């Protein structure tokens, strides 16, 4: 078998290196699996579960952004996540993909404007904005889905707000702490 020919191609360079793409794929998988596990443990509509689930997802997102450190990482995460949602949630929210993508790009721009991906403050601001915009879009979707009953939309809005509170209260501090720890352990490089 060793005499087989090898078609050689010229080396190509890409904006997204393979490592970053693999990290995005793995964190998307981890985030989905953990959200599912938390929801199974405490029930999907349980306010505390919602709080915790969103907190964990945000903490993971902070680690992802701090690890990949490239403009557009939030947009790529959204794109991959929405394609997965399209597969596992039957499409519903995927029609809002352009809105999600725009919100992620705006958040990426905020991180870049606040000093870049190496500054933890900028990363936290970007992730907080992304979560806020993402939830606003989710509320818009609820409005479309349950437009016949506005009271139901208001209740959904409260639950969405609770999820956002989880991002702010648990997700961002934990994410920042994890990044600091991973840098200390040499798993994420500082420079």
């Amino acid at each position, binding site marked *: 078998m060793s005499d087989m020919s090898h078609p050689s191609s010229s080396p190509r360079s890409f904006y997204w290196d393979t490592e970053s793409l693999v990290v995005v794929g793995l964190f998307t998988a981890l985030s989905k699996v953990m959200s599912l596990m938390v929801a199974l*443990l405490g029930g999907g509509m349980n306010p505390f579960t919602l709080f915790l689930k969103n907190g964990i997802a945000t903490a993971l997102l902070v680690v992802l952004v701090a690890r990949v450190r490239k403009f557009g990482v939030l947009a790529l995460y959204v794109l991959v996540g929405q394609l997965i949602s399209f597969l596992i949630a039957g499409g519903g929210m995927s029609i809002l993909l352009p809105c999600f993508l725009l919100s992620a790009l705006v958040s990426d721009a905020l991180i870049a404007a606040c000093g870049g991906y190496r500054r933890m403050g900028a990363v936290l601001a970007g992730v907080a904005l992304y979560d806020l915009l993402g939830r606003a879009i989710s509320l818009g979707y609820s409005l479309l889905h349950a437009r016949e009953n506005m009271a139901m939309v208001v209740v959904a809005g409260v639950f969405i707000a609770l999820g956002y509170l989880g991002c702010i209260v648990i997700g961002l501090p934990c994410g920042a702490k994890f990044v600091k720890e991973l840098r200390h352990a040499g798993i994420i490089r500082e420079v």
Partner: protein
Amino acid sequence: MLALSAKFDPDSTVGKRDALDIRTRLLISLVVTSVTLYLSSNATLAAMSALTFCYLLQTRRYAVIVAAYLLMLLMTLLSLGIIYGSSRLFMLLLPGEGMSRMMSGVLDNFHTPFLRSIPSMNVLLSIGLNFSVQGFVGTMKSVRMPRFLFIPLLVFCRFVPEFVDVIRQLRDAVRMRGFAVGFGSAILHPFQTIRLTAVPLVVRTLRMADNLSMAAEMKRVGYAKHPTQLRTLRFRHLDFAVLAFTVLVSAALCIWEAHLPKPKRMPGTRSARSSQISQPSGITK
């Protein structure tokens, strides 16, 4: 030991194949969920639910279908209970005429949003019951998905089952240290629960990423513009026919919806409240 030649048919090694291409199922899902968002009358939503239910029955997994419907019923009742309970709580916490007027109609027309969920569930289940990761990965290659999407999606498909296993092992390891990761511990010690679960998982994920990215680099995954394929996916006549039928039926339902008389809105529902909101504040007082 090393063989010099061998006949190999990759299609013969896979089990029973789905009658429809996965791309067809995904397109049906997109069309149905989009159209369902537009539909709002009971008649059109019921028709869409019935049609998608027939599509779901084609999978012949009756036990799973019954279980899914029972689960949905349970979730619906649970959601209603939570929504009703929350509305009472809001009225208690934020007393006022506006809140009480809004929340008084909380259960009006509740069936429409839930009726809207049925077609989505039907198409989702039919994807789930016929889903093969191999088919999905093949689709990604055949539609020439860009590298920046292909690699993360490939990694996602490959590692979701791996993570489920890692989480099980982690749960065992934490229990052996005398801690139980569960709902109770999450309420009593949320930060400790997150530390015990997220830190090892994040470290494991980042280490996996190191190895996997090296493997992907060495295999040059994502580097060719038009990779060849071990197995070729083909769109068959049935796929075209089913897609055409879906589009036609969806269009017909949309037209039906547009020509239906608008139902009278109950107090507290969107139209009633928006008219109240648009009135000058002096009148409402």
